[in-house]
């Protein structure tokens, strides 16, 4: 019998439906992998019983002829999604022990579709980070190692580092992530899997611990494009409890998947060719262009002139929103409370937040508070919002000449843990290719496209027009079909 944990979501779904194996067998197999991989620290909390219960229900449903879209499929759930009765920490000490009495809309939809939960996945604290080094619960380690034999522990990317690592190590076939400035796409690129951030508003934010409200989006991470389509269909949909949720039907993305790009124009934005870009990444980008042509697309050079302002604008807007969204973590109603003897209210606030938040979270709250403060609001926040509009308009103009954009996902392959954690700004540069499409609310995906000189995965990013997840998935499929990416992390854990 195949090792069930090598199967994709589609493979599990279809094999289960065909009667090749029971859902229970699948759940047991993944639960075993999870239990045996603690060294990766991909999970904050393991929930094998939840996976088994869902599997048993799936097996029952199957015997009654009642299978659901994800029956038999166990997944990982990023610890940013509130799960009823299961600890939800957002990777932070300030929410350690917090057990929601409610279920996020996205996770509820996945359970209703028949999926089971293997556990809550580790992540950068409050989704702030690009390497999963800011979690209170320790770093997540990538299952990948450089081919130089050095055995340096590598970052899986962030903030959805646990999700990325777990999928790459076959601890789960798919997982949810969230992407605010690249937190699905960049870790997907680092570990050689696929991940898509849909159009802003496709997935409900209700029950997702908020970082930056105008940027946060839930999305799937999985081995391939088809799996992403399957997962996204289950996750997406209008939610009246989220005022920014799009009131539109969810398209049948999986059924309409096609790698045939005839008639499509792929834009290559010249500003993404940054200084000091590693030659390997440039070379991969060229390969990607060739693959697009091979799939029938026309290649067009385009200009997105305000690209270089995207990162600074993002690192003003996102912290500003976060400084307000994180004000509720104050020790009064839930989570950590640090109440020194004789402390008054202000002392309790100060002690709780000092003890509860990690350094990167504090840094961003301070930046956010500063850029919103009297005397600085216009110079920073208003200005950044204006830049955001200009960036959006860049894309609008580009869509006159092309249908999709092709870029690298990240400016490097995975780096070692600790290599960039001393320099926050160097860490922020990881997001340079992913942030513009976040600011514009556009759908964007990363697909694994090749390996670097040290055998580490590199990804290519496709950005599409608002609501054109289909176009993005299809171009992703075209790359996947030609890239022949079959590399896997060699098991050392």
């Amino acid at each position, binding site marked *: 019998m195949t090792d069930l944990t090598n199967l994709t979501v589609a493979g599990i779904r279809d094999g289960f439906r065909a009667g090749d194996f029971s859902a229970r067998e699948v759940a047991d197999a993944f639960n075993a992998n999870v239990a045996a991989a603690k060294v990766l620290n991909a999970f904050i909390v393991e929930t094998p019983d939840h996976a088994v219960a869902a599997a048993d229900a799936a097996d029952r449903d199957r015997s009654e002829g009642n299978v659901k879209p994800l029956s038999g499929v166990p997944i990982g759930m990023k610890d940013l999604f509130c799960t009823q009765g299961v600890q939800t920490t957002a990777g932070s000490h300030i929410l350690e022990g917090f057990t929601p009495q409610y279920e996020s809309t996205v996770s509820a939809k996945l359970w209703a579709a028949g999926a089971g939960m293997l556990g809550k996945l580790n992540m950068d604290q409050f989704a702030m980070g690009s390497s999963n080094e800011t979690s209170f619960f320790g770093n997540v380690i990538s299952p990948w190692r450089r081919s130089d034999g050095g055995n340096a522990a590598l970052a899986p990317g962030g903030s959805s580092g646990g999700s990325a690592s777990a999928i790459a190590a076959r601890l789960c076939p798919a997982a949810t992530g969230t992407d605010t400035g690249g937190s699905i796409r960049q870790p997907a690129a680092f570990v050689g899997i696929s991940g898509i951030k849909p159009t802003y508003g496709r997935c409900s934010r209700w029950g997702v611990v908020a970082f930056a409200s105008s940027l946060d989006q839930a999305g799937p991470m999985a081995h391939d494009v088809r799996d992403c389509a399957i997962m996204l269909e289950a996750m997406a949909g209008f939610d009246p*409890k989220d*005022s920014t949720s799009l009131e539109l039907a969810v398209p049948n993305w999986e059924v309409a998947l096609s790698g045939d790009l005839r008639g499509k124009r792929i834009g290559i934005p010249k500003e993404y060719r940054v200084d000091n870009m590693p030659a390997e990444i440039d070379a991969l980008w060229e390969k990607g262009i060739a693959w697009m042509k091979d799939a029938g697309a026309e290649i067009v050079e385009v200009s997105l002139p305000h690209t270089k302002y995207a990162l600074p604008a993002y690192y003003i807007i996102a912290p500003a929103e976060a400084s307000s969204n994180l*004000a509720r973590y104050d020790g009064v*109603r839930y989570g950590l409370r640090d109440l020194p003897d004789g402390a008054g209210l202000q002392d309790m606030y100060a002690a709780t937040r000092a003890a509860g938040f990690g350094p990167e979270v504090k840094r961003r709250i301070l930046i956010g508070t500063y850029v919103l403060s*009297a005397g600085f609001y216009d110079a920073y926040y208003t200005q950044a919002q204006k830049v955001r509009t200009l960036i959006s308009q860049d894309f609008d103009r580009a869509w006159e000449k092309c249908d999709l954009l092709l870029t690298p996902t990240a400016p490097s392959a995975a780096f070692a843990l600790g290599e960039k954690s001393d320099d926050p700004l160097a860490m922020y540069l990881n997001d340079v290719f992913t942030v513009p499409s976040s600011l514009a609310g556009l759908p964007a995906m990363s697909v694994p496209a090749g390996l670097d000189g040290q055998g580490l995965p590199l990804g290519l990013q496709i950005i599409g027009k608002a609501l054109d997840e289909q176009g993005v998935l299809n171009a992703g499929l075209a790359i996947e079909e030609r890239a022949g990416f079959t590399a896997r992390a060699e098991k050392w854990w």
Partner: protein
Amino acid sequence: MSEYRIQGATGEWEVVIGLEVHAQITSNAKLFSGAATTFGAEPNSQVSLVDAAMPGMLPVLNAECVRQAVRTGMAINAQINRWSRFDRKNYFYADLPQGYQISQLYHPIVGEGEIAISLDEKDADAATKVIGVERIHIEQDAGKLMHDQHPTMSYVDLNRCGVALMEIVSKPDMRSPAEAGAYVKKLRSILRYVGSCDGNMEEGSMRADVNVSVRRPGEELGTRTETKNVNSVRFVMQTIEIEASRQVDVLEAGGKIVQETRLFDADKGETRSMRSKEDAHDYRYFPDPDLLPLELSDAFMADCKASLPELPDAKRARYQGDLGLSAYNAAVLTAEVDTARWFEALLEEGAAPKAGANWLTSDLFGALNRLGKDLSESPVSPKQGAALLALVADGTLSGSLSKQVFEIMLETGDDPAKIVEERGMKQTSDTGAIEAVIADVLSANADKVAQYKDGKEALFGFFVGQTMKAMAGKANPGVVNELLKKALA
């Protein structure tokens, strides 16, 4: 209008007043959450996940609250802003779970409007003035803290947290405590007419922040202070007097007024500073990214407009103009929407306007005062009141008989016709019977008759009284007068 001045040691001072009134919107659910808004519930029994600011919660706008704010704006002839936006006002306090209040700073839903006030609405000659309203915006209310339930801890009740408020900001057009008092009363009346706020200041559904500054007449505006959460009309007026006097004292002693927030202490009769400069907040207002801008459609606007009732000023004018009521009665009847409604019900049951107005304002109100009840607890209904008045109109009862019947109605709750029937209280116009009684009275008082004929005309009243007494008050007074005159001629 106002010549109100504070007499300082060095001369006269003018007072400039602006009021920011926070009015809780009447709606079933809160502004951004579905929790109930009923006053007086068990602590923390009306708190949704959104109100408690649990992780991952998001606000969803309650359209009814928007409707109430728009209707209120229309009722004060204000500009309604078809596009408005919500902003977050950020600060930390235990009654504010989110760590920010959702409000509208930059683009409020209602723009400039006005409220006409009179220093005495019952007096047609009283001074009147138009007070400008700067804007109305909608925002969340905070929870309540209780500091007296425990020796070392404060208790937090979040029932009120998230209830919708209208913040109605006046222009600094008022110049005396009386004007401010009239403004608050008028605003309260309008809100109750519109039905957008119950105006209950004791329960906290309406409270005022009082902005006061002083200046020499004719000079530039002085620095103002803000006294927060004043919860009665009387306290608003007291706050102004006390704070203006305090400011005059400071300035005359050579000091400067600090722009600050103060609290009114009714027991001590003083205002005191609430926050020192170090605690001054920078609220870091920015547009709430969880909410879309608020856009009002033509259909929505038309619906709001159509739903407005006749407003107090228009109603008062109609009562005076069309119904011919006195300025006094028109003012009394329209001061409170409930009174006007009762009066209109009375008219609908057939009462004539002037008679109905007089009866309601003196007889009914007099009785209710005596019984310690308000109009909603009246033992007599509009239908019964109208029936009573009809019995007077058709001659069945005299004025004084009707008062007796009314007393019995108050006690028993019975209909007037039933009372008159059962107790034989009809007035009699039987000229024969009355003539006979008059003859008895005159013959029993021959000496007084002689005095009357000699010129002591005041004795006529005595004869009337004796006749009425002998007939147990049931004689038609008009007929008695006529027949007595004849008999004494």
